[in-house]
């Protein structure tokens, strides 16, 4: 809906909301359309509720505006209605990696404080 903003420091965008992070991670494996994104999120996280279209596309719109995701070249697949696919940008990949690292650090802290059991060797 609007042009991507100029690049910012990835750390400025952290922490990501869980939905935005989930969308980014879903797109890491390849281009997907809206329903594909939702399916992949649901496959990964068995307890996830079905995303309402408004929430999903509002998140996608914000991701495009922030330059983390870009519309992918349209591909019409045999007989299916024409859909718009989305692709993660290199900047988006970087932000997702930083968020993952941040969560990893958080997880480590949680283990150290014994909120989570330590990993078995």
């Amino acid at each position, binding site marked *: 809906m609007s042009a991507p903003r100029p690049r910012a420091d990835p750390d400025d965008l952290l922490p990501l909301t869980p939905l935005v992070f989930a969308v980014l991670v879903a797109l890491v494996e390849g281009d997907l359309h809206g329903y594909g994104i939702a399916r992949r999120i649901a496959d990964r996280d068995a307890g996830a509720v079905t995303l309402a279209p408004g929430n999903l596309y509002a998140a996608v719109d914000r991701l495009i505006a922030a330059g983390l995701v870009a519309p992918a070249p349209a591909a019409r697949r045999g007989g299916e209605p024409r859909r*718009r696919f989305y692709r993660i940008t290199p900047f988006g990949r970087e932000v997702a990696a930083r968020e993952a690292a941040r969560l990893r650090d958080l997880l480590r802290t949680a283990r150290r404080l014994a909120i989570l059991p330590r990993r078995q060797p």
Partner: protein
Amino acid sequence: MTGRPPLGERLLRLALRCHPAPFRREYGREMLQYYRDTVGRESARRGRLWRARFLIASIAAAAGQGLCQRVAARPAVGSTRRAGWLADGRTDLKLAWRRLAAAPRPTVAIGMLALAVGLGVAMFTVVDALMLRPAPFPEADRLFHVFAGDERGGRTTIPTDLYAAWRGSPAFEDLHGVGHGSAIVEDGIEPVMRAGAFVSPGLFEMLGARPLLGRTFVAGEGRPGTRALVVLSERLWRSQYGADRSIVGRRLRLSGVAHEVVGVLPDGFRFPTMRTEFWRPMDFTALQPGAEQALNRPQTYVRLAASLTPAAASQAATATLRATIADGRPQFTHLRPIMAGLMDEYSTAAVTALAAAVGLVFLVLCANAANLLVVRAIARRSDYGLCAALGATRGRLLRQAFAETAIVGLAGTIAGAAAAWALVSTARAWLPDAFLLRSLNPIDLDARALAAGAIAALTATGLASVPAVWLATRPGAVSLLRSVDRGAVPRGGPRMLLRALIVGEVALAAALLVSGALLLRSFLSLAHADRGLEATGVVTASMSLPSHRFPDRASRLAFADGVERVLRATPGLRPVALSYGLPPRGSVRYIGPVTPLSGGREAEAFLSGYFVTPDFFRLYRIPILEGAAFDDRAHEHDVVITATLRDRLWAGQPAIGRTFRLHGDNAAYRVVGVAADLRSPGSATEDQLEWYRPLRVARGGDVEAEMFSTGQVMVGFRCDPACPPLPDLRRRIRGVDPDVVIAHLSPLDGEYLELLAAPRAAAALALVFAMAAAVSAGGGLFSVLATVVGRRRRELGIRAALGARPRELAALVFREAFTVAAMGLTLGVGLAWLLTRFLSSLLVGVTPADPVTWVVVPVVIGGIVLAAAVWPARMASSADPVAILRE
């Protein structure tokens, strides 16, 4: 059922409008596709409840995200920064919420708004289904019912050779036939008689019907020698087969013949009538000789060719018609649009009048809510004055006042939606056979009703809140700070406003009460009208005989004789008379010319035929004015006619022995008796003239029952002194043959009352609306009086200290109440006089100038005013000077 997208998708589409237009352009289609994908793939696994929850979540998300996108700068991916003025708006809402949560809560105002919105939406739903919306089929403007006749009209069915010719006509893109075919559905929970139809395969496609389960018919089905198939309606599937999803493929018996179920159509599909509950395939071009009469002449429905106007199509069809049927008479094609609402004149007028009444009630309720909000605003003016003194701008005050009423409006709207749902469900349950359900459109709350509800809610909130907001924030409010604090009476503007609102409410309530009372009087006069027979004490029954069990006339006659014998043997039932056709509806109808063969002159008449046994006239106590009723040896063309028909044909001359003929019938009917007319004023059968023919006729020395070619047997009997319990009688009739289906067994009085269902419902609804308006006006008056007395306590206390007696103080309140009521009543009488002009077509046996009504209504209004004033008056008279002066 139609080509439109399902309701959920339409609702979501509406909700997506919350998003700003650029966002919608970018993602709207994708979002709908996403919704379709998700529902399409998930709902089979997760069920209906999940689907409903997903729809609600989707609508809520669209509304919430859309609102955020509109009011705030787009939040960044991670942060929650918001625009400054939004915070202001939130503060306004928070403050407003706090104010409302403090006592006194505006529960009553919310209730009034809810009732206004609920009534408005419910009435709109009904009027929309009956009168506004086209028939629920895609491109309904090109769908027509087609038939042939002379230039004035003709039979609404056509012979099958014309049907076949028209199928090839370029006038029509598509043409399908329908033959009515009721049957006994035998192996559900209990055997029941249900209306069904034979349809040509392809009709469902033409009407855009989509099955709920299974499929509809395909070409080739319904030809002689093919399997017997049936499609069930959702209603029949639920009521008789417990919504068993494995029904498709099962074989069930319809009037003794096994049929395989191929599909179930959703409740929203109603065709050709709203009562049709199953459909069987029929190829009308390949009928076998000896097929039922209804199938030889199907009703025919067409979709016009896209390039033709109805006039051009009619012309082209007429050419085909004249080439096919050449009997020397002029032939014309008639196209009639498929109407959604099948309403008689009375129902149309009544529904319009009731819709207008709901409009008035809506105004009364809004005025009342406005009243309550004004009363609150008067109490609040000191707060607003204080805020203004502390430097709040007028704009800020306006915003706060609007925020407060907006919350009231929102609460009222939510409660109103619930009220509308409850009212529509009640209307559906309570008025099954009256005029509210006579539509091919289902009466449901849908997107149109929601839109109407939104408009109603906005209007109601606007009407109710503007006076209060204006009053609370007008510049003068600041200067009133001190005086209001001392508890002075609101004067000038506010007082005028309150009075004007109450006067308006009382006036509208009075007008509605007059209308309601007139409709009630009209209904009572209809209910007690002379019917030309004595219905009290008579019970009638009609029975359907399954054709596999009663294949011929002899077996049906034997059953009828059995029933007559059993009933005669029951103590207290005398006389008992078999007939074909029961009062008040009769059976065979004829509309057309009646031609006397011996003097007299031809007359157009609407005849309702009865085939009767000799005891018929004695049973119903229908006076025979001339000649005699039939005896057991009657000839098949002997008839008894009514006095009105005699007068029309032979101008009051004796009619016995004279003969007449009906159009399209070669028999010469010989009059053997003249009976008094039957009357059922106010009903659709009002203009019918009865004529009676013998049920059993003497032919060559034998007695033969002429009218047992159908599987219908009807009987009436008089109970003397009281009727045995009806279940007991039912058991006795079933004792004659357990396979019989008793379609009805009920007192004749009830049947007549049933005819008056529409006037009864109109009167009941009008009175309910009028009482709602009157009670609401009373409530409004009460709240105003209570406020005025509360604010005048100082003044009243001073008066008491100066020697005013309690009675004089109470009189002050009563004077105020009755002044306002008298003004309202005067205005209301004028308004009612205007309204009754429009009601006159609904009134029977009572004139708009009915004195009883015009006396009773002011008395009722007076009573309500008195009741509203009593408590405030007592409060005023108990004013304690010491306590008040000490404050």
